[in-house]
């Protein structure tokens, strides 16, 4: 089997001229993006050209994949989509990371080209574009074979890696065609109806092993932290404890005397130390005594903000509010309601805890006018921009080497630490590997924002939910807003708003972003109403919340999977919730028990039904959901960041508690609703339903609602006592 090559080799490959075989490039002219022949590409005036697919005379097919790989499998999935429409022989396909050039390899979103892989959108965004490109390549192969045989291309067929003439049984391998073939100019176009029908798929929807896995069982997969360059030195940084603070002075002379220390450097928000070896840099960082100027976040107390400040903002009619969704006449719905419900929810800050601490490697050339960057990033294009900006370079002066990511979860998409590394490398004029220690990674994290939420719902005399108000208060702008709308329910009158504050705390996407706490609140409200009326919660969603047919299907599927109505063993209880993210929809059920003396919740079983559109790679898709479930369990039961005087109180895995194997449910069942619609995102949909489903199960066991994430044992005990 071929394995994706190491990131660092990719960008050394330039144009494919002179390699032989057929090279297809993507070219961006002034007004279009097109697949073109490699040889012709070189002569295209003004066009920006780069390789995408190459067929070598030996039959090898090289496909460049724009899927940043953090374990979700899109490196493989994206190439697989091209291979499917090409009808390539998968065993001859080699995958390489695409260079960080968004004009070529970017998907189009809101009229902009981007490569950033966030929101689990890789397959979703590239699907049609890649199928079309694959189909064009296939057409070229058919045309060449037809010319050689003197027949009409329309009479020919393909089998994996082969053009076949059904009339006489003649066959030509793709490699053989590549040896003599030429690429017509312009390339043949592809009509959407020329794309394969689902029943003809040979790769999509099948269990195809991920290409990055073999290198991940023997230590050869290269992460940026593993990159080693001649003459490279090691750096680490101590940042301001309160975000926004600047270093005023530090014990520079003492630090410079330490063994192996080569330099110190003042950064806007911290002090960098550079040493021959990393352990020397860590020792120097630990010995730093810095006087900090206070920063924007100084004085911030996260618990005080969440418990008092946010409540005041919510209660203040004059507070600045941003309406996110409004329909119908909410006032009238509440005025005429037979019953009104209100509920409040809170959630704490969350830290990414990606297993590979943030790091990057940067090398400047001798002349100091070009830089190379090695980073595992969700957004190679953004890293290039950040580094260029940090160095005062143009984009062309920065070359990006994509590496595997030891986890991303939303943190690795802005290239901040690469930019920091670039500044240090420029200062010390040596190649630099910058690693943030785990402690730094926590202390200077960018967090899922904490939130306070208030919901109100109005029911008419028949019990139908006719009015809905949802207000989220917190720090994080758009991060607070995702997942707050409820398009899967048919509530006629709605007002949904955000009231933002800014504490100067660094916040960022965290697997599922706002969906994690917003769906906790939304589904918490729905479960409360169903319980109050004594109606089965699935029934309630269908009848009283007017759940859409897509949502209904998910609920019906999960009900069948878990045998929803069947009795459970003594002390066990089920809880249920909807899930939604990246255009995917789902429904999940948990079975839990609770130790009432310790407050520890144990999740025994999880069932989840997902409508994610057509599933491209089912086993990776399942792994993504399982991973999302564990992330959800970890976030719901354990993870919590708090801040005092603007500084994070946690520092490593002893006090930032990430879920361990002993908390793994005994069973996790994942099913995808069988549909033929365009694929939607799967990396995060496994996460948001966990908290509301657990809270629901705890209520059904104890009669008490948990309303503050995470549900730590202390909080559970408090709730039971209340």
């Amino acid at each position, binding site marked *: 089997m071929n394995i994706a090559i190491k990131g660092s080799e990719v960008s050394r490959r330039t144009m494919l001229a002179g390699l032989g075989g057929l090279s297809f490039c993507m070219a961006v002219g002034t007004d279009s993006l097109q697949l073109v022949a490699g040889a012709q590409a070189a002569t295209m005036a003004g066009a920006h050209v780069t390789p995408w697919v190459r067929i070598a005379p030996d039959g090898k097919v090289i496909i460049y994949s724009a899927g940043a790989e953090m374990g979700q499998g899109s490196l493989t999935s994206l190439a697989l989509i091209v291979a499917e429409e090409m009808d390539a022989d998968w065993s001859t396909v080699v995958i390489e990371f695409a260079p960080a050039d968004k004009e070529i390899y970017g998907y189009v979103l809101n009229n902009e080209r981007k490569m950033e892989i966030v929101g689990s959108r890789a397959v979703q965004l590239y699907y049609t574009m890649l199928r079309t490109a694959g189909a064009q390549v296939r057409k070229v192969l058919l045309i060449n074979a037809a010319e050689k045989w003197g027949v009409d291309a329309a009479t020919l067929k393909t089998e994996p890696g082969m053009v076949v003439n059904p009339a006489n049984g003649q066959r030509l391998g793709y490699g053989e065609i590549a040896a003599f073939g030429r690429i017509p100019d312009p390339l043949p176009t592809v009509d959407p109806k020329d794309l394969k029908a689902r029943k003809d798929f040979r790769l999509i929807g099948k269990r195809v092993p991920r290409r990055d896995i073999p290198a991940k069982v023997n*230590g050869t997969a290269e992460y940026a932290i*593993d990159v080693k360059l001649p003459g490279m030195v090691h750096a680490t940084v101590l940042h301001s404890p309160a975000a926004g603070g600047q270093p005023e002075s530090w014990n520079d002379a003492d630090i410079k005397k330490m063994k192996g220390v080569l330099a110190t450097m003042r950064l806007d928000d911290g002090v960098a130390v550079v040493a021959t070896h990393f352990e020397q840099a860590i020792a120097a960082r630990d010995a730093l005594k810095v006087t900090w100027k206070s920063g924007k976040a100084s004085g911030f107390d996260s618990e005080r903000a969440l418990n008092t400040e946010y409540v005041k903002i919510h209660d203040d009619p004059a507070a600045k509010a941003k309406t996110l969704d409004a329909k119908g006449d909410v006032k009238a719905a509440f005025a005429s309601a037979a019953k009104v419900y209100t509920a409040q929810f809170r959630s704490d800050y969350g830290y990414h805890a990606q297993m*590979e601490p943030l790091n990057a490697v940067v090398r400047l050339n001798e002349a100091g006018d070009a830089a190379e960057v090695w980073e595992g990033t969700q957004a190679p294009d953004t890293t290039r921009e950040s580094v260029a900006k940090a160095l005062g370079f143009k984009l062309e002066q920065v070359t990006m080497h994509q590496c595997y990511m030891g986890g991303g979860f939303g943190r690795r998409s802005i290239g901040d630490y690469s930019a920091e590394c670039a500044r240090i490398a420029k200062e010390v004029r040596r190649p630099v590997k910058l690693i943030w220690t785990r402690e730094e990674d926590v202390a200077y994290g960018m967090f899922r924002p904490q939130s306070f939420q208030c919901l109100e719902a109005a029911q008419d005399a028949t019990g139908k939910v006719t009015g809905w108000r949802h207000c989220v208060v917190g720090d994080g702008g758009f991060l607070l807003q995702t997942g707050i709308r409820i398009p899967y329910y048919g509530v006629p009158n709605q007002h949904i708003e955000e009231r933002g504050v800014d504490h100067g705390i660094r916040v960022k996407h965290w697997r599922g972003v706002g969906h994690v706490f917003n769906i906790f609140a939304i589904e918490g409200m729905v479960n409360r109403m169903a319980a109050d009326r004594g109606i089965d919660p699935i029934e309630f969603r269908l009848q009283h919340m007017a759940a859409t047919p897509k949502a209904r299907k998910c609920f019906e599927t999960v009900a069948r999977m878990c045998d929803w109505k069947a009795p459970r063993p003594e002390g066990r209880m089920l809880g249920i919730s909807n899930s939604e993210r990246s255009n995917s929809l789902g429904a999940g059920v948990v079975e839990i028990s609770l130790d009432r003396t310790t407050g520890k919740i144990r999740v025994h079983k999880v069932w989840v039904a997902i409508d994610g559109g057509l599933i491209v790679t089912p086993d990776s898709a399942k792994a993504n959901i399982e991973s999302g479930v564990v992330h959800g369990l970890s976030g719901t039961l354990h993870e919590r960041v708090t801040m005092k005087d603007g500084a994070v109180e946690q520092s490593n895995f002893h006090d930032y508690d990430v879920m361990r*194997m002993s908390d793994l449910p005994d069973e996790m069942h994942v099913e995808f609703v069988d549909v033929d619609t365009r694929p939607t995102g799967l990396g995060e949909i496994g996460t948001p339903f966990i908290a509301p489903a657990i809270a629901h199960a705890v209520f059904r066991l104890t009669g008490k609602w948990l309303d503050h994430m995470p549900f730590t044992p202390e909080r559970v005990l408090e709730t039971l006592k209340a």
Partner: protein
Amino acid sequence: MVSFLLNEKRVSVEADPATPLLWVIRDHVGLPGTKYGCGAGLCGACTVHVDGKAERSCQMQLSALEGKKVVTIEGLSPTSSHPLQQAWITEQVPQCGYCQSGQIMKAAELLADKPKPTRAEIIAHMDGNICRCGTYNRIIAAVERASREG
């Protein structure tokens, strides 16, 4: 200068005796398969074998290694053919993969001691190794497979 056996090759390292084995392996010798996760003995990403026992290399100093036998993921099997590695591929365990060297080394210790562990024994043995990607269920399945097929 401290000498020890690393993946069956004798190495001599000239560094501060307090240097953690993790950095000795990764930087001084240059085998990057062993990973830095926490540097504080909390995550298991840096797990290697020292005289046949799984140890957290971030917590072991170079000075303690004189004459010892250290095996890293690179030395577990020169051809990736250890039953655990094969089972890891069959079960498609890794996601980001960053924790997996440590997971495999920790699991290898278990199977060496106890070729037929129960699910509960696997969990008890592996509980100190964090996988942030949440591959725990597949790790268990792979250890069980290796135990069956190995």
